[in-house]
């Protein structure tokens, strides 16, 4: 179709007129001015007319400027801003750390003496409690009965104990209760004795045993029997006096045993150790022959004078063993001496200078490493002793510590030795009894919640992200979400509304009921449910974003469809549509080339206003943590990251600018939308 441009036409007419006049000659100087002369009438195209009306509206212009600057800020800003949205910033900062831990060592550590330790695990595991029991009861030796043998723990020196292993030989049983005599087999007609054999009992059993169970008396002792498997009977007897298992001991033994039973768990007789094991009312007595030294136990920890020296367990064993003797020992070809001094065991090397010491007081770095220097350890233990004397639970110690650089490493002199400076350390006793030493150390940490500075214009947030960068990238996503969602709404809405309005009848009926349904769907709850769902599925944050946009679009098309349908219903009856039909234009073209462009003004207004609404919804969802997720920034998530009560109170410089940005963007969209509506149709309701 040829376009008819009034301006061009007028210009052409004017040119023709001028040419005609020039032909006629310039006899008259006066210009004839016609009513439709260009100099009198200026005809604007509809687009320019709308534009002119739009820029006359101050609020709308203001809104447009805001929007343009917002777009420049979020889409071009990041190109010039040095930081990314997921860039985490670190800093070196003084932190009050738990530097060391000091405690009175009460746990006994065992070191292997024997090359191959054969002691059973249950015995080894209960060593600590056994030693504590010995200390509490003031015992020098303690006998322990294991599954496979007997053990002896003996005190070797102050807080030094040795565990030795050997055999446990059953000697006898006493007290009251039943003793298993043996098993009688009806096939061999004999008794397999477990206790000491009784002469003539075999015959007695053969005579008396029959049936399931019963009892008989032999030699004044009552025996009872019960049938076990395969024609065998278990014969038991009630205890009376001392029943020997093996060799019978003399009267003196029984006398000692009688005294010991019930009073102590072990006794000594004739140079041998005996252990009484109580089984209910019965006491079983074992002879413990333990002569193999297995492990040596001590609650001392070894501190070398030079810090950080590794000392092998063999050295410890040699030193501890020597401490109970003359104190001289050699290890790996070097001679040492060990001597007890004021509650510690001091080890001297061959030159007579102090090499290391066993001390009951362990001072270690909080991580458990033994890297602290000897004099620091001494100073801390001295301070703690002083605190204990004064009965206070905390104290301050000023001592030299290796000096740290700004970047956390240690400062060194030219010759490589550490530089020290005085540091204040706070020593506090915990309720569990150990002492914690706190002091300031320089650590490499995430730069959290730093205040606005030249490096970070708006500071950093709780994850060490630069807030300004987050706001820029957040604006990108928020604006993009607005555009995509509105585009989707328009796309579905125009197609559905166009079809419904154009065809009418059952198509209209069907589509409008669908519109009713979607109108009625509560969108916010559904978005929240979707968000929770995607949370549960641990969906990737970008996919979440897509799904959220799609859902918002699907939820919002009903309004657009209704609007388009209403417009089309009224346009359909107008003459130009009748003409379009008469000229035989295709249905598709009639809808999308003639009807829809006429709905465009309303659509543009709805879209502009809708964009603000979508940004609000998106930010609300993201604020609730159900929209766009953490590492990705949107304006909602930025506010969400400081929404806890304390963060909100302290970091207002983060959330207030972002909230205002959301607000300003939505206002700008609304202003522009309002302005557009007024410009398109000045008579419409505002």
């Amino acid at each position, binding site marked *: 179709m040829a376009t008819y441009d009034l301006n061009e036409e007028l210009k052409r007419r004017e040119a023709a007129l001028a040419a005609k006049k020039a032909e006629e000659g310039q006899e008259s100087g006066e210009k004839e001015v016609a009513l439709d002369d260009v100099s009198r009438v200026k005809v604007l195209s509809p687009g320019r007319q709308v534009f002119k009306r739009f820029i006359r509206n101050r609020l709308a212009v203001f809104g447009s400027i805001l929007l343009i600057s917002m777009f420049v800020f979020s889409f071009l800003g990041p190109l010039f801003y040095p930081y990314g949205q997921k860039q985490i910033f670190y800093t070196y900062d003084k932190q009050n750390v738990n530097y060391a831990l000091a405690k009175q060592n009460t746990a006994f550590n065992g070191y292997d003496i024997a090359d191959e330790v054969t002691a059973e695990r249950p015995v080894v595991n209960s060593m600590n409690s056994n030693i504590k029991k010995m200390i509490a009861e003031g015992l020098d030796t303690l006998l322990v009965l294991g599954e496979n043998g007997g053990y002896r723990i003996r005190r070797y020196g102050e807080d030094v104990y040795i565990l030795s292993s050997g055999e446990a030989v059953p000697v006898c049983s006493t007290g009251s209760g039943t003793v298993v005599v043996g098993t009688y087999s009806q096939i061999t007609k004999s008794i397999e004795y477990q206790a000491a054999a009784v002469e003539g009992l075999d015959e007695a059993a053969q005579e008396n045993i029959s049936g399931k169970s019963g009892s008989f008396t032999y030699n004044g002792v009552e025996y009872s029997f019960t049938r076990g498997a395969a024609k065998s009977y278990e014969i038991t007897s009630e205890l009376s006096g001392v029943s020997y298992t093996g060799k019978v001991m003399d009267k003196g033994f029984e006398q000692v045993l009688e005294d010991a039973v019930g009073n102590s768990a072990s006794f000594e007789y004739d140079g041998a150790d005996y252990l009484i094991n109580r089984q209910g009312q019965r006491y079983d007595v074992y002879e413990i022959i333990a002569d193999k030294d297995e492990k040596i136990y001590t609650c001392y920890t070894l501190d070398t004078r030079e810090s950080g020296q590794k000392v092998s367990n063999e050295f410890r064993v040699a030193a501890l063993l020597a401490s109970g003797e003359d104190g001289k020992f050699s290890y790996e070809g070097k001679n040492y001496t060990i001597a007890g001094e004021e509650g510690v065991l001091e080890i001297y090397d061959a030159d007579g200078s102090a090499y290391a010491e066993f001390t009951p007081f362990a001072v270690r770095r909080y991580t458990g490493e033994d890297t602290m220097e000897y004099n620091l350890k001494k100073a801390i233990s001295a301070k703690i002793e002083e605190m204990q004397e004064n009965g206070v639970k905390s104290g301050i110690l000023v001592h030299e510590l290796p000096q740290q650089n700004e970047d956390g490493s240690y400062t060194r002199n030219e010759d490589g030795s550490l530089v020290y400076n005085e540091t204040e350390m706070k020593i506090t006793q915990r309720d569990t009894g150990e002492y914690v030493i706190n002091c300031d150390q320089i650590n490499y940490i995430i730069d959290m919640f730093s205040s606005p500075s030249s490096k970070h214009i708006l500071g950093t947030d709780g994850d060490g992200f630069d807030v300004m960068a987050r706001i820029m990238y957040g604006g990108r996503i928020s604006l993009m979400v607005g555009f995509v969602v509105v585009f989707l709404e328009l796309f579905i809405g125009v197609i559905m509304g166009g079809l419904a309005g154009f065809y009418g009848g059952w198509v209209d009926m069907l589509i409008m009921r669908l519109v009713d*349904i979607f109108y*009625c*769907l*509560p969108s916010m709850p559904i978005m929240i*449910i979707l968000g929770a769902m995607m949370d*549960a599925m641990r969906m990737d944050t970008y996919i979440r974003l897509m799904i959220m946009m799609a859902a918002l679009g699907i939820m919002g098309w009903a309004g657009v469809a209704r609007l388009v349908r209403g417009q089309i219903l009224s346009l359909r009856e107008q003459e130009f549509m009748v003409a379009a039909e008469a000229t035989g234009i295709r249905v598709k073209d009639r809808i999308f080339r003639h009807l829809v462009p006429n709905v465009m003004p309303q659509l543009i207004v709805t879209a502009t206003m809708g964009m603000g609404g979508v940004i609000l919804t998106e930010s609300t969802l993201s*604020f609730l943590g159900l929209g766009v997720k953490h590492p990705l920034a949107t304006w909602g998530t930025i506010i969400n990251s400081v929404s806890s009560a304390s963060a909100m109170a302290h970091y207002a410089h983060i959330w207030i600018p972002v*909230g205002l940005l959301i*607000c300003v963007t939505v206002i700008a969209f609304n*202003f522009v939308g309002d302005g557009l509506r007024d410009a398109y149709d000045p008579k419409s309701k505002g």
Partner: protein
Amino acid sequence: MLKYVLKRILYSILILFFVMFIIYVLMYNMPMGYIETKARELASRPGATKSYAEWLADLNAQYGMDKGVVLGYLTWLKSALVGNWGDSWAWTIPVTEEFHNTVWFSFILGFVSFIFEIIIAIPLGITAAKKQYSFTDYFTTVVSMVCISMPTFFIATILKYVFSVKLGWFDLSGMQGRDYMKLSEFGKFLDVAKHFVLPSITIIIISIGGLMRYTRTNMLEVLNADYIRTARAKGVPEKKVINYHAFRNTLIPLVTTLGGSLPGLFSGALITETLFSIRGIGYASYTSMTQADIPFIMFYLAFISILTLLGNLISDLLYAVVDPRVRLS
């Protein structure tokens, strides 16, 4: 009239049927929902005799989730129609009981805000229209625009920051102060009322802008009508023109919209209640939604869908009642 109402109600029921179906499909497909969590918990108990899969099948059967979407929906619908909404999974009490516990708080919050909204927005809108292009007009327009454009959470956060953190007048969230149990009956009432102040202000700010604009636009339209010009021409005092002729006609659209929003007072303010921890139905449903509590969510969404449809119906009916020119057909 009666025929129209009946037809509308039938339509609404049809719409409701499909709306609930869509929601049910959504809920049905919710992964890691309550049942899965429960099954995992039961299967990992010491001495559990069934595996996770067995428990899952068992629980699904118990909760009627094993029938497929359509049958499951019909089952739900059948029991819902006879008033059996089931027990809430998140609140472990019958859904209707939880509803009863919470809805009144929401209603009070909504109602108080509604009253204030009307008291503030309508006079302001009318004043703005009366003096078009005056300072008052621009001020009202800008304020209403700002109110419309503010996200709820931002308003709530600002209010909390100013009145709770900086001034310390109100608690940050919750419905009771820490001395609640020590107070007398009247003191308790005042305490709860105090906790409702910030949420109500939030709701008022959100909704005031729209109503203000709506009032202004309609008043302007009425003021431009011929009968107002006539009234002025014949010398009716300006006060009477505004209050008698213009305002009454402005009331027509106002009454219809406000009447239509009456059912919405029961639906609770989802975001505001959540942000301020007001135990209203909005907060309850938010908690349920995040925990996939299907019975309660189905009930709540059915409830608000009904309210929406009811609101539309009331609004249309009021239109005919208030404006004698309108005939329903």
